[in-house]
């Protein structure tokens, strides 16, 4: 059984059909990168996976659990699925440590005495152990994004979703975030990314999913997909993003 099973998902915003029957499986430990032009539905699909968006028809299962069923334990489910956003979305009124420990403490994942150690641990993994007492606004964009990743890691998720996490960063700050993600990938984290970073998609992902007009247009291993795109849409997308 795949970790994530997406079956014929349709999603409409007003009159615009954003997802027109998307099916996709993601195995445990797999790194799947979703690429495509803006408006192709890739971010929406990602947001559907942890029920930030509802679906009209079709179903999504994560670890066998139906995501959009009337779920009494949506909170429990989300504790297992981390998502990192383009805009970081750190809590500006809390220091880095509290940003990270808030959810583990409130959900009863850890005890108060262990909180600081947990924050230190996940911050070390993103290379920011020295920023534990900083305010978010004192950090660069790249650092904020790494704290956002650390905040997810503190919940020990089984699956990580990344929604264009480098798109809001200055070019020189992109590398540090990608490096953290690459390290997570090596440690066996299951990851689904929406990204414009073709280099990352090519080098780190196990599989590329090209979305076009609300459908999975083409998918396969990066080497094959980038070298021999089967559809003219993907070929032109690759050409335009070089």
């Amino acid at each position, binding site marked *: 059984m795949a970790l994530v099973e997406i079956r014929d998902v349709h999603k409409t915003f007003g009159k615009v059909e954003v997802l027109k029957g998307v099916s996709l499986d993601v195995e445990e430990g797999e790194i799947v990168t979703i690429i495509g032009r803006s408006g192709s539905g890739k971010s929406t699909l990602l947001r559907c996976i942890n029920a930030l968006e509802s679906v009209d028809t079709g179903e999504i299962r994560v670890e066998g659990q139906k995501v959009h069923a009337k779920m009494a334990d949506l909170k429990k489910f989300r504790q297992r*699925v981390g998502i990192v956003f383009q805009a970081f*979305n750190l809590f500006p*009124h809390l220091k880095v440590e509290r940003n990270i420990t808030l959810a583990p403490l409130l959900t009863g994942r850890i005890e108060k005495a262990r909180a600081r150690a947990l924050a230190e641990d996940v911050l070390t993994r993103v290379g920011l152990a020295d920023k534990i007492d900083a305010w978010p606004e004192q950090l660069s964009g790249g650092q904020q994004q790494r704290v956002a990743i650390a905040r*997810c890691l503190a919940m020990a998720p089984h699956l990580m979703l990344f929604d264009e996490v480098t798109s809001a960063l200055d070019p020189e700050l992109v590398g540090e975030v990608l490096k953290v993600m690459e390290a997570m990938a090596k440690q066996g984290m299951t990851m689904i990314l929406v990204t414009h970073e073709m280099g990352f998609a090519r080098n780190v992902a196990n599989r590329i999913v090209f979305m076009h007009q609300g459908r999975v247009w083409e998918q396969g291993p990066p080497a094959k997909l980038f070298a021999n795109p089967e559809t003219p849409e993907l070929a032109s997308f690759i050409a335009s993003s070089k």
Partner: protein
Amino acid sequence: MRSFTLIDFVSLFAALRWTVALVALALAFGAPLALGLAMGRISRLAGLRWTMAACIQIVQSVPLLGLLFFFYFGMPVFLGIQVPALVAVTVAYTLYTAAFLGEIWRGGLEAVKQAQWEAGACLGLSAWQQFRHIIAPQALRLSLPPTVGFLVQLIKGTSLASILGFVELARAGQVVSAATFQPLLTYALVAAIYFALCLPLTLWSRSLEARLDGSR
């Protein structure tokens, strides 16, 4: 006629206790109600949002004087209930406070980005936990300066209670002025006392504004 003496001075200050009491009553009952209204206004339930909005609109549109009249003079006529003056003013000031503070706080809550709720939800927090730990603290900081601003309005607004017979600061001024035939001196003093009461609040509000830029 007699001259303005220390006793008059003291009686003005003594009347301050009603001014303070009215403000305290208005806040004690009005602030919790305001919080409820603000939360109702950002609720996902459209019916609740509209109801709250309508309540706020009605109260905000009626002059404070009208509210006082309604609960003191109107209730016996329309509902046949004779309410004690203290109850009438408490209800009127409570509604007044709730309507205005409610809207101020709603604005604060809405000024916090939707993505902050989302970020909390994605970490597995309940709606209440998101509100309590993520949204409310940020909204509070954004709302503090206008909240203090309203407090100043409220302090001055208590002068209207004088028409229902409360000898608060403004009414005490009338009494002293009538007894001493020194209206200019008396009302200048009354004004100075209001000023002394409100100025620290205004200054405090301004320093808060400078200190809390809303980002943290």
